[in-house]
């Protein structure tokens, strides 16, 4: 069993209008994959549909060979930073600890070892100094790091991250990519919704090109070509001509 994720014929429709049509791809274990496409292409919707956060009209999703079920705890999800209320009365350590909740079970409190894991994860993302900081007082990059620390303590096998690089500073971007590579080294699979085309070949082994339909999916070297990108972005790719992409 070498596939981390198998997606078969996933279709999502809102009010009869298809948002995603017949998406089918597989993700091998131990790779970093980017989900790339223009705004409104359904990238976030795809992740949410895969994790049953949005209703699918059709399709199957298998994680590590088994039909996806939340309680299997094989999946770690990092939502877009903007989806939670950062005014919530809590601090960085507490948010990180929430990553352990799936392991703790009903009615029980986080143990000392859960707290130790959370502190260790905050250390890894360079946020130890801010662990008692109220989350609204953190910068965008710091908030994103807390989200990643929370994902780390989930100790999942497959991670789905929705736009983790949006609105973060350069230092955080480097910290995140280092972390993703660590995860990959330890055999985890990471699927990332990504919008910065320039960094795709540098960061990701595997790429899914998406625009309501699946344009291509495979090793970045093979998939990330001018022709395929033109097809994904349609006429909106003109800006790419000014970038290093042209040489490819």
């Amino acid at each position, binding site marked *: 069993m070498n596939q981390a994720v198998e997606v078969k014929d996933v279709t999502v429709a809102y009010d009869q209008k298809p948002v995603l049509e017949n998406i089918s791809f597989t993700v091998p274990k131990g790779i970093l994959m980017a989900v790339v496409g223009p705004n409104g292409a359904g990238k976030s919707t795809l992740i949410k549909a895969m994790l049953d*956060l949005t209703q699918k009209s059709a399709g199957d999703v298998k994680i590590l060979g088994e039909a996806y079920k939340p309680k299997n705890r094989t999946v770690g999800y990092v939502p877009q930073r903007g989806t939670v209320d950062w005014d919530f009365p809590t601090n960085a350590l507490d948010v990180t600890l929430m990553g352990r909740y799936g392991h703790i079970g009903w009615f029980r409190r986080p143990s000392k070892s859960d707290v130790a894991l959370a502190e260790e994860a905050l250390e890894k993302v360079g946020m130890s100094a801010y662990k008692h900081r109220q989350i609204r007082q953190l910068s965008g990059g710091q908030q994103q790091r807390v989200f990643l620390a929370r994902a780390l303590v989930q100790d999942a096998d497959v991670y789905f991250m929705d736009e983790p690089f949006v609105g973060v500073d350069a230092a955080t971007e480097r910290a995140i990519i280092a972390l993703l590579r660590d995860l990959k080294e330890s055999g985890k699979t990471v699927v990332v919704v990504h919008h910065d085309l320039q960094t795709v070949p540098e960061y990701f082994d595997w790429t899914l090109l998406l625009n309501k339909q699946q344009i291509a999916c495979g090793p970045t070297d093979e998939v990330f070509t001018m022709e395929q990108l033109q097809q994904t972005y349609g006429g909106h790719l003109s800006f790419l001509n000014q970038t290093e992409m042209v040489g490819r």
Partner: protein
Amino acid sequence: MGYEAWILLTGSLVGISCGMIGCYLIVRRMVMLADAISHSVLLGIVLAFLVSQSLNSIYMLIGAAVIGLATTIFIQWLYASGVPEDASIGIVFTTLFAIGVILISLFAKDVHLDVNHALMGEIAFVPWNTIVIFGAEIPKATATLLGITVVTLLFIIGLYKELKITSFDAALALTIGLPVTFIHYLLMTMVSLTAVGSFDAVGAILVVAMFVVPGSCAYLLTDRLDAMLAISALVGVLSAVSGYYAALWWDVSISGSMAMMGGVIFLLTWIFSPRYGLISKWKKSSTPLKEQEG
């Protein structure tokens, strides 16, 4: 216990139970939903009376829980069908409340159930309507509220982390297998029970104040959910007790006075809170901001 002590205890129990449940309504941005439920439970109370022909509080609580859940579900249906959320809330609760008012005027004229009482409450009558529990004679409303407060405490302590994670990040909660919708309805049931338990004491309009005001004060005073719950309960008690004495002093409505004292405490917090008060904000903006660490 004397007359005054019963009133103070009853008011304090309202403050504790509403204050703590109210914290979750505030952090979930659901205060308007609680407003809706606290009104529409009137229909639950009337229906419970019509079905059971008694004013036994058990039937009332069941009726309120059912109608409270129905309110939540109807609002959700309307919202899902494309009606804006605030309009959905307004449509559902006014309609259910109106049905309750009509049913009272049709069938329940002769019993101790009138619209005015339901809206405004009458805590001054609470000590006279007693039952005997374990050989002790205690006011019915107080006994009910004591039960509700205990259930509220068990609910919050037992499901502390589940309530927190579903409030903060429902998507994460779903991906770790928590029944997010079930917990939402459980919370709404607690809102219904607390609302109906507080009905006698403060009525449908002012119970909203008890849900919102103490929690809002606490929100301005702390950055931790557990501290927020404790402060909110404390402010609830403080509003009830100071409200009672203010009502004696000026010879005015007790429930109105309790809600008003809540408002006064909020005003003071809003101005003087060391973290988020008007004065500290003004001080912060007049000193240069420190560089944000990256």
